[in-house]
């Protein structure tokens, strides 16, 4: 048993680290370090830098412009990016729709869509969930009815992350007759957001951000050539994608960074608790909580490495990814709450402007204390999205325990 990286892997790690030090823009680094919300331009700029290096598409096959990296290389790259504070690439184009296009699309579709995704010329968003189809995604009701060379799309998609920036949306739509079994009636359709009849309305979350949207389709006419693969196979395509492309779902490196930062800040925060501890970091109750979390994170890190080792030998990630999702998001949320706790009274101000680009007023509270509660509120979504933790638990019950 051996968890060391090989000499080649260590050299690769060095190469990534050097690249990040040289190429990752200082401006974006400062924003992430100060909890400033990243804009569309920040993501696009960074992705274009990655694309220039040939590292934008870490999960694509080489023939389409991917890196061809091993799972361990992808893991190293993700880790180094998180260490450097570099944001993950927007998943919708590079990690979600592109694999469906190169796996199931025709030649014309590949040539039409993949280069622009690789170069980050086009912003994609995801049209899966609907107001009445959340955890039970297969019950989706958006219809695409064929009329000649077009589909006429009607319905509503929701939780469309950053859909306000999107040029294109990939949707799961119902093409089959009403009596066809749910999964066999679903198709995978690409839709230009400029098509008449599409209306995007923001949904404000508990932190006040318009991060997600509802996308309404009212008799939207979509050329038949935008269908990926076969009618009625959309569910299969989406499902394959979900099991294979859940990279960095546990967020271990990010959580490690945040815990480290939390400990540093606690050493500079007065305790203010009963007893004679001068700093919060000296308080045994605080120490205990942070230690328990660190230990839980260490276990998760090794669970992730075990999964990585299995994937490296060619096995598909199985229900282990459910453990990564459940424990990873629970740990993230525990760190969120410890940050609120550390902020004390400065967790109360709701000063969203302070964390927007270009704020020039008098900041309230030290460092990012006032960002802590909005982050805690917003990130309650983590145990809900991507297959809620209850759904992940069901997967373990059925697929692992045979219950």
């Amino acid at each position, binding site marked *: 048993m051996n968890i060391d990286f090989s000499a080649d892997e260590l050299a690769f790690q060095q190469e990534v680290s050097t690249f990040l030090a040289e190429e990752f823009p200082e401006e974006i680094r400062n924003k992430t370090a100060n909890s400033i919300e990243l804009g569309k331009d920040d993501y696009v700029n960074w992705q274009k830098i990655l694309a220039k290096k040939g590292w934008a598409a870490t999960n694509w096959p080489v023939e389409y412009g991917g890196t061809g990296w091993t799972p361990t290389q992808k893991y190293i790259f993700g880790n180094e990016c998180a260490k450097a504070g570099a944001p993950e690439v927007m998943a919708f184009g590079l990690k979600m729709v592109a694999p469906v296009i190169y796996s199931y699309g025709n030649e014309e579709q590949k040539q039409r869509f993949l280069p622009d995704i690789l170069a980050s010329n086009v912003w994609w968003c995801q049209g899966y969930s609907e107001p009445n189809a959340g955890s039970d995604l297969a019950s989706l009701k958006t219809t695409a009815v064929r009329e000649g060379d077009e589909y006429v799309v009607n319905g509503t998609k929701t939780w469309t992350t950053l859909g306000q920036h999107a040029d294109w949306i990939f949707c799961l739509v119902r093409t089959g007759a009403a009596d066809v079994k749910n999964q066999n009636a679903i198709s995978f359709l690409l839709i230009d957001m400029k098509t008449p009849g599409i209306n995007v309305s923001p949904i404000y979350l508990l932190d006040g951000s318009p991060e997600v949207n509802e996308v309404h389709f009212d008799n939207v006419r979509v050329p038949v050539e935008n269908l990926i693969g076969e009618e009625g196979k959309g569910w299969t395509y989406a499902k394959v994608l979900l099991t294979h492309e859940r990279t960095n779902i546990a967020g271990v490196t990010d959580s490690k960074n945040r815990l480290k930062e939390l400990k540093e800040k606690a050493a500079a925060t007065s305790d203010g608790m009963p007893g004679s501890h001068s700093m919060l970091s000296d308080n045994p109750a605080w120490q205990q909580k942070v230690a328990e979390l660190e230990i839980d994170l260490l276990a998760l890190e090794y669970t992730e490495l075990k999964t990585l080792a299995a994937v490296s030998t060619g096995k598909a990630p199985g229900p282990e990814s459910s453990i990564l999702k459940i424990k990873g998001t629970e740990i993230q949320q525990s760190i969120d709450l410890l940050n609120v706790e550390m902020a004390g009274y400065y967790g109360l101000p*709701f000063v969203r402007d302070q964390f927007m680009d270009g704020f020039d007023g008098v900041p*309230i509270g030290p460092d990012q204390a006032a960002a802590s509660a909005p982050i805690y509120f917003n990130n309650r979504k983590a145990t809900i999205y991507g297959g809620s933790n209850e759904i992940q638990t069901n997967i373990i019950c059925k697929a692992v325990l045979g219950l």
Partner: protein
Amino acid sequence: MDFSYSEEQQMLQDSISKFINTEYDWDSRQAIAKSETGFSADHWQMFAELGWLTVPFKEDDGGFGGSAVDLIVTMEEFGKGLLVEPFLANTILAGTLIAEAGSSEQKTELLTPLMEGNVQLAFAYAEPQSRYELANIQCSAVINGDEIVLNGHKSVVINGAAAEKILVSVRTSGDACDREGVSLLWVDANSAGIQRNSYASVDGQRAADIWFDNVTLPTSNLLGNAGEAIDVIEKTIDRAALAICAEAVGAMQMSLLKTVEYSKIRKQFNTTLSTFQALQHRMANMFIEVEQAKSILLMAAIEMDRLNGKAPKALSAAKSRIGKAARLVGEESIQIHGGIGVTDELDVGHYFKRLTAIQFSFGSTDYHTARFAAS
């Protein structure tokens, strides 16, 4: 043994409950919270007319009675409606200080208009470095003859923006965390040298950071003796902690109710969420938490009334236990609602936000667990 409310308490509860149910629906509450001042002056006047602003005060001071049980009856109902009107800042924080430490002239000048709804008050006590330690005060007040010069920075003052008069905890002698040397004074909010930076808080209320730069005021603005204010400040903050515990109990009941109701209408996999046993058990656990919270709240209120308002161990037990319940009920309500629970539009997220703010006000859950252990 009798846990029932008195007839007067019952009437008080009914009248607040009626107000919340008929005039404080969710849309109205949101409209008020998003208005410029963040609360309704009309509601405030009505509270005065109905005598609610006298609830925390003794009959001798012209109040309703001022028992801890009166307080929790009131705050529990306000918690159900997620009231944003500054009842806590005015009557419980500022009001208790004046009632406990003020001279009869000061009571006439401050307490009477407060009960009549004619003045807005706030208590500035926290500082950037203090967290929950009330004696950790760097704000300095230098007494020179019959004049006081005030300097310093107070953090997150609830109702700090609307306040016309601000009560301030200051250091008149001693070192940063000494219990001796802490004094209490009030200052006109429009005095020269005061700068306020006001903002909404995460729970839809209003607060401000306040800077004092050589603010001068007469020594007659001191409440009580110079250097001896820490006891009354602690008593007041404990009273405020009890009040928000009651508010949390009200908010938790609503959060649970709304979650159970939603689970009965939300369908996934061709059935309502309420039919999944995994979720049923979680809602049952939320119910147990709410009942435990109600019980320990009553314990603390009874102890406070029995011990003349000074029951730190009982109060800490309640704040610790209710903080734990508030976290579980708030977080589980969101999780069981799913995505819709994380939106600004639905009320359940706002109960969660207020329940979170309560956990970290007037001593966090851990603070009170540690104080319980130490007392």
